[in-house]
C-alpha cells in the first residue's frame, strides 16, 4: 500500500512539452508511472514519443481527464503560469495536483490552496520534489533508482534530504515518500501526511524531516501526541542558521524567537519522537525503532 499515489494512479503532466516536463516525464515513465496524458494549452492533438510509450497531448486538463481518466496531475509550468495551471486542475476536479514549480508567488499559493480546499483536489507543493511510492508510481522528480519499496513512510520539506534518507534506508524501503515543499504556504502539510501514514496499512513507521521557519513541526508534534500510534523519528535541519537570513528555501528563515531548529527538536522530543542529530543518525534511529516493534 501507499498514500496518495499507487500503481493504479493515472498521471497527467501539465507542461509536458517543455524541456523540464519532457525530461521528467521520461524519468517518471521509467519508474513505472502510468502517464496517460500531457497538457499544454494550444497543443491539443499532438503527442510526445517516449520510446516505449507515446503520450497524447491535450489542450486542457478537462479534456485530458475526460479522455484518459487521469486522477493525478504533475505541474511543470513556469511560475507565471502556475496559478492558472493549478486552478485548471482544481476546476477539472483532479484529486491530486503535484506542483513542482519553484518560485510561485505566495499569494497564488494561498489562492489555489483555498480553491482546492473548497473543491475536491489535494495539492502537494509548490516548490517540491513531489512524491514516490517506490515500485508503483512517481509523481515529480524524486529519483526512483536510489531506493526501494518497503514499509516506511517519509514526509519532508526538503528534496535532497528526502533523497539522502530514502537512500540510507534503501534496504528497508518505503511505502511512500512525500516532499511537501519549502515554501511558506504549501498545499499539503506534515500533519496531512502523518494522518495518511497512520491510516495506511502498508506503513509501519514514519520519518519526518523538518527545517527552520514557521511552526509546522511544532504543530506536527502536537498532532503526533494525540493521533499517531506508529513510531515516528524526525530530523530537523538548520541549527546553525542565523536569525533573519533565508536559508535557500523561501520558508526557511528564523524570525525572532520563533522557527528555530532547537524549538522544533524540543517540541518533537517532548512527545516522544526521537530526533537524529544528522541524517545518518536519523536513519539509525529508524532501524532501531523498527527492531523494537
Amino acid at each position, binding site marked *: 500500500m501507499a498514500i496518495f499515489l499507487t500503481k493504479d494512479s493515472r498521471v497527467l503532466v501539465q507542461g509536458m512539452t517543455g524541456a523540464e516536463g519532457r525530461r521528467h516525464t521520461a524519468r517518471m515513465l521509467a519508474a513505472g508511472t502510468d502517464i496517460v496524458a500531457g497538457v499544454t494549452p494550444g497543443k491539443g492533438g499532438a503527442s510526445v514519443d517516449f520510446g516505449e510509450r507515446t503520450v497524447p497531448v491535450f489542450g486542457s486538463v478537462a479534456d485530458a481527464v475526460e479522455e484518459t481518466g487521469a486522477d493525478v496531475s504533475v505541474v511543470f509550468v513556469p511560475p507565471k503560469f502556475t496559478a492558472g495551471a493549478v486552478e485548471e486542475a482544481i476546476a477539472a476536479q483532479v484529486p491530486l495536483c503535484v506542483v513542482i514549480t519553484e518560485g*510561485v508567488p505566495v499569494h497564488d499559493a494561498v489562492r489555489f490552496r*483555498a480553491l482546492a480546499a473548497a473543491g475536491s483536489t489535494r495539492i502537494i507543493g509548490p516548490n517540491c520534489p513531489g512524491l514516490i511510492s517506490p515500485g508503483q508510481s512517481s509523481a515529480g522528480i*524524486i529519483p526512483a533508482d536510489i531506493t526501494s519499496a518497503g514499509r516506511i513512510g517519509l514526509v519532508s520539506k526538503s528534496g535532497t534530504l528526502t*533523497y539522502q534518507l530514502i537512500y540510507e534506508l534503501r534496504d528497508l524501503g518505503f511505502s511512500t515518500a512525500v516532499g511537501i515543499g519549502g515554501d511558506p504556504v504549501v498545499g499539503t502539510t506534515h500533519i496531512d501526511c502523518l494522518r495518511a501514514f497512520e491510516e495506511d496499512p502498508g506503513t509501519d513507521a514514519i520519518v519526518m524531516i523538518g527545517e527552520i521557519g514557521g511552526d509546522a513541526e511544532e504543530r506536527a508534534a502536537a498532532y503526533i501526541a494525540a493521533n499517531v500510534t506508529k513510531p515516528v523519528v524526525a530530523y530537523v*535541519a538548520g541549527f546553525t542558521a542565523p536569525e533573519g537570513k533565508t*536559508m535557500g528555501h523561501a520558508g*526557511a528563515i528564523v524570525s525572532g524567537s520563533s522557527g528555530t531548529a532547537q524549538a522544533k527538536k524540543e517540541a518533537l522530543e517532548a512527545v516522544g519522537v526521537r530526533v537524529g542529530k544528522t541524517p545518518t543518525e536519523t536513519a539509525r534511529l529508524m532501524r532501531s525503532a523498527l527492531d523494537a516493534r
Partner: protein
Amino acid sequence: MDLYEYQAKELFGRHGIPVPAGKVAATPAEARAISAELDTPVVIKAQVKTGGRGKAGGIRPAAGPAAAESEAEHVIGMDIKGHIARRVLVEAATVPFEEYYAAFLVDRAEGAFLAMVSAQGGMEIEELAARDPDAIVKLPIDPVAGVDADTARQLVGKAGLPEQAAPVLEKLWRVLVEEDALLVEVNPLICTADQQIVALDGKVTVDDNAAFRHSWEYAEESVSLEAQAKAKGLNYVKLDGKVGVIGNGAGLVMSTLDVVAGAGAAPANFLDIGGGASAQVMADGLEIILADPDVRSVLVNVFGGITACDAVANGIVTALQLLGERGHGTPIVVRLDGNNAEVGRRILSDARHPAVRQVSTMDGAAELAARLAAGA
C-alpha cells in the same frame, strides 16, 4: 524582501492611506532642505530594516532646518543592531491622540491570510501579545473574497477603533493584495486630536517570487559576496566560521552546516548550487568560497539524486582545472553519495588533485573538514 519605512509609506500614499508629509534624505543637507520645504517641526527617522529604532536613538525630533541637519548628521551612518542607517526619513511631526495596531499578513500555519487589529498600538506586537493577548483581534481573511467594507467595519468594531479607520483598513488590504505583500503592518496607526487616521509607521514585506508582475525597483546597495553569488544564480549566505560549505539542495546544505558544527567547527557559509551541478556552477561556487579569507577548508557535500555522481565528479574536476592556482591549496573534502557514487568517487581519485580528499559519509567528511580547518 522587507521594504524601508519610506518605501512602505510611498506605497501607502499611492493607495490613498494617509501618511505624514515627508521625504527621504541621504545627506544632512538634504534633510535640511526637506525640513525647510515642509516648514513645520519634523522627525528624523533612521531607515533600517529592524525594530527598536527609537530605543537606539534613531528617531529624533527637530524644530527647524538647522536642527534637522544636525540630527540627520547624527543618525546617518548609525549602527542599529548591525543595520547601518544610510538614509533618514524627514517627516512632519504628527502628534497621536490615540495609537492603534493594524496588520494583514500571510498566516503560514493556516496557508491563508490573517488580519490583526488592536486598539493598543505603539509597542511591539509580540510584547502586546504576551501582555494582553485578548487586546488583539485576529480574523482569518478568505483569500478569494478578501476584505470589503463590511469586513473592515467588523474589524474596527471588534477591536474598538473609531469607524473612520475602516476605509484605511480596506486600503491596507489592497496594498497586501495588489503589491503581492506577505506582510503589511502599521504600528502605530494613529488618530490625531482632530480625528484624522494616519499611518505613522509602515512595515511591508513583498514577495520576491512575484517580482515578474511588478515594476519594483527596490535595489539593495550591496557589493557583498552574497550579492555576487546571487548574480551567478547561487544561493549564498556568509557565516562566521572557517569551514566553507557547498552542496546541492537547501535542506542538505542546512543539514551540512549542522553536521560541521556538530564536528566542532563553525561553517563559513551556506552555499546551495541547486540541482544538476554543472562544472561552471561548481567552479563559480568554489571560487566564491575560496575568495573568503576566513575559509581554511572546504566541504563539498553532494547527494546524487537526479544528477548522477559521475557527472558531479566530472564537474568538480573541471571546476578545479578552471580555478587553477586560485585554489591557494585550501584542502577540499568531497563527499559523494547516491546515484552512481562509486563511479563518481573513482573519477575523483583518478584525477589525483592534491587538494582533494574524499570521504564516503557526510558525518565523516564533516569531521575531516573540521580537523583540517583547525590545522590538524
